[in-house]
């Protein structure tokens, strides 16, 4: 009986089973209509409740609006899932509970009691925040309901996993972009970085303009010489090196400083994504990752930063010298280690406004 209950995901009190058996037994042996009526009535009641519970159980569905969620530490984000009742029956009291370990849930929004009318959809949204970065999983969602009389309890767990990547917290850090090499995505008011593939406008010819710059069509139209003007733009690839060597950090503040170093690295990578610049990454940390600067790599680097941990050992080389030959010309190299974090904290404590990668010593001399 316990196995059958487990298979059907229905819980029933032993009293109901005993009543059912007694009513069937007495119905079969009683030769009186009145007594048969009572026994059949009880049997029909239990049977109808059972069918109600079975129909409801097989027609309640649950789905999440997404399978992966990315948020930053200490930021609020919403998790949403939808509960659907495909059956023509009402689930009068439906309790749901979404499991989200290691997260703070606002107003206990991950659990509640609702009622689902026939064919109804209910969207459940609640806000969460995390204190620590990492990779987490939400789910399963537990649903508990029953038939109207309450004889059969439906208790189901729907897997619907949700992968939550918590990225390092966002901090206040300005990353100034020193011009890299010409013809990129970033605009600059400097003809040195002229990009002849991006024509901006046409202006009147000035003595000294090159012949090949003249716009002959416009000149013919207006019977006067006109020269093409181009966008001045440049590219500045980023390369971030993160030092998470255990022995380089003091013991008493190792955890705090290393987390701050990761947050600083994440801030720089976010900036590169904002500027649509190529971004590379390397670290003395768990896995020793190395990613040369490429486009659309920022998300991948931020995911790495969500999971990276301190590695035993000491950094015994200069990252600038080690990676210089592998990086494209004009790459901005950012090195974040314990010294840089200390300078950052010093600036923060002094309540400086203009805390940027240059004055904290993170941005090194550009390569090339």
């Amino acid at each position, binding site marked *: 009986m316990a196995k059958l209950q487990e298979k059907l995901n229905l819980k029933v009190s032993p*009293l109901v089973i005993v*009543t059912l058996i*007694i009513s069937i037994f*007495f*119905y*079969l*042996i*009683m*030769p*009186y*209509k*009145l*007594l*048969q*009526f*009572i*026994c*059949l*009535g*009880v*049997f*029909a*009641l239990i049977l*109808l*409740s059972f069918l*109600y519970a079975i129909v409801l159980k097989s027609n309640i569905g649950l789905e999440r609006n997404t399978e992966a969620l990315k948020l930053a530490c200490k930021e609020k984000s919403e998790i949403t899932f939808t509960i*659907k*009742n*495909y059956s023509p029956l*009402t689930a*009068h*009291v439906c*309790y749901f509970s979404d499991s989200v370990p290691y997260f703070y849930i606002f*107003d*206990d929004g991950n*659990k*509640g*009691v*609702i*009622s689902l*009318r026939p*064919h*109804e*959809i*209910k*969207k459940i949204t609640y806000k969460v925040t995390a204190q620590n970065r990492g990779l987490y999983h939400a789910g399963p969602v537990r649903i508990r309901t029953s*038939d*109207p*009389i*309450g*004889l059969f309890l439906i208790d189901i767990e729907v897997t619907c996993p949700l992968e939550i990547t918590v990225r390092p917290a966002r901090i206040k850090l300005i990353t100034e972009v020193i011009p890299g090499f010409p013809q990129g995505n970033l605009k600059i008011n400097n003809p040195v970085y002229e990009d002849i593939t991006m024509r901006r406008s046409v202006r009147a010819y000035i003595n000294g303009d090159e012949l090949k710059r003249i716009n002959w069509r416009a000149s013919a139209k207006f019977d006067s010489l006109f020269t093409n003007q181009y966008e001045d733009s440049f590219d500045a690839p980023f390369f971030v090196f993160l030092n998470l060597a255990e022995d380089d950090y003091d013991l008493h503040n190792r955890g705090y400083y290393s987390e701050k170093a990761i947050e600083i690295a994440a801030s720089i990578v976010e900036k590169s994504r904002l500027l649509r610049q190529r971004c590379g990454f390397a670290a003395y940390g768990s896995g020793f990752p190395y990613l040369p600067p490429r486009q659309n790599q920022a998300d991948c680097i931020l995911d790495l930063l969500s999971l990276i941990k301190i590695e035993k050992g000491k950094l015994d080389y200069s990252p600038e010298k080690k990676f210089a030959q592998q990086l494209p010309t004009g790459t901005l190299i950012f090195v974040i280690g314990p010294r840089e974090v200390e300078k950052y904290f010093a600036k923060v404590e002094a309540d400086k406004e203009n805390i940027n990668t240059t004055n904290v010593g993170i941005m090194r001399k550009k390569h090339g």
Partner: protein
Amino acid sequence: MVKKFNSLFERFLVFLTTSSFMLAVFATAAPVFNKIEQDKILINWVSFVIIFISALIFILIDQIFAREKIKTYLHIVVIVFYEFAAVLLCWFTGQLNLPYVLIPFLVIEYALSYTLNNLFVYHDIFITECGELSGKELETHLFHNNLGAIDFSAKCKVALALLFILPVILFLWIFTVLKIGYRISLPAICFLIIFLISEFFIFFISGIYKNDVFFGFLGFRDFLNDKRRLLRSVFAILGAAFIFAFFLSSDKALIKLTIKERPVTYSSVREIPKLNIEEPLNPNPFEDLEKILPFKKSRIPDWVFDLIYGIISWSFIAFLAFCVIRFFLKPFFTAHWKQYWKEGRLMKYLRYIFSEIKALFNFSFVKGKKQTPYSTVQSQKFSQGIKDYLKKAGRSKEKNEEIDRLTKYFMQVIDWGEAHKISYRSNLAPAEYTKLIENQFKISEAKKTGLLFEKALYDKNVLTAEEEKAFIEAVKKIIQLRPENQES
């Protein structure tokens, strides 16, 4: 925590269960116990009236005792005085045979009423303890103060066990009566059905009250949104069960059980050996002892010992009688009793019952609130249709992203439309659907939404930033609208 059902309704169920059970038993037992030819009537219409009125009085007494927090042993005082009153009433009305049956059955009725009423009394205590707390506060409060919940669970188990045993007893009794050869009268059948229905509702309500405790511990104060809908479902299931049972029951047993008597054969008759019982040697041991050991006659005469024995025994009887009288009369001389009558609490309680009656009729006969609109699963088919369309048409990545973005907004319009009874059908184009909304609710933004969405869907180029912004604003205006306000 909010009470799910009117307390008068609960007590009415207890009264109905108790009285219908007793009346069903009396109605089926009357032809068995009454011997008209010997002029021995133990159960008649007076018994029925007494049982019926007693059930009412007992439930009233139980409630007053629960409200005044009277000690449990005083129920014994009440039942004894009530029995005296019932016997006196029978003596005055000349029904001298009735007390033989009434006395035990009144005790049983009182015990049933007390046990079933306790279920609701302890639930009321639990609700009162929860107060106005909800959410985390309620969860924390119940975690630290769970005695009320434990008491209620214990009383609930006892009541449910009783409610299981009562119909079994009644069932077996009716079977015995039918087997003997008596018929079950129509009133007995009516009482039986009323008993079964009221018992069913007590089971149902106790299930809801057990959920009160369960959800209370999780911090949910009010989990039952629509009582009427729930009651309708319950009535529907009950009605279907009755119809099913009525048409399928018959007077023929599907399995016939016969008891065969095993024949016993005696091979020989055994003679019972006669025992020689000798006369006892000493019929009077005291006489013989006197002969063997002649005692000296005592100086204290026998009547002294008889007197002392008499004093001790009568003083013990008097003491017991005094204790019993004191036990039964003391409650009438307590300060609580005097205060109860002085403050007129009985009248206040009767007025409270009257207000509960009004509230019960209000719930039963006043129309409930309108059904609030809600989204249904049919509207979800639209997004699946769009996804399939996108798979077939070759589109650029930006176009796909734009359609994905705008489809989510249009889905909100469809959900809003479904909730306001404009159902979406798969043969409708987006602009046709928004035209329905515009015609019904006179919303100008609906047309703009439909046209812009169709442009995004069917055009190769992406919408401009202004067009997308205008689409999103139009969608937001639609979903924020309340058509009831517009119509008024």
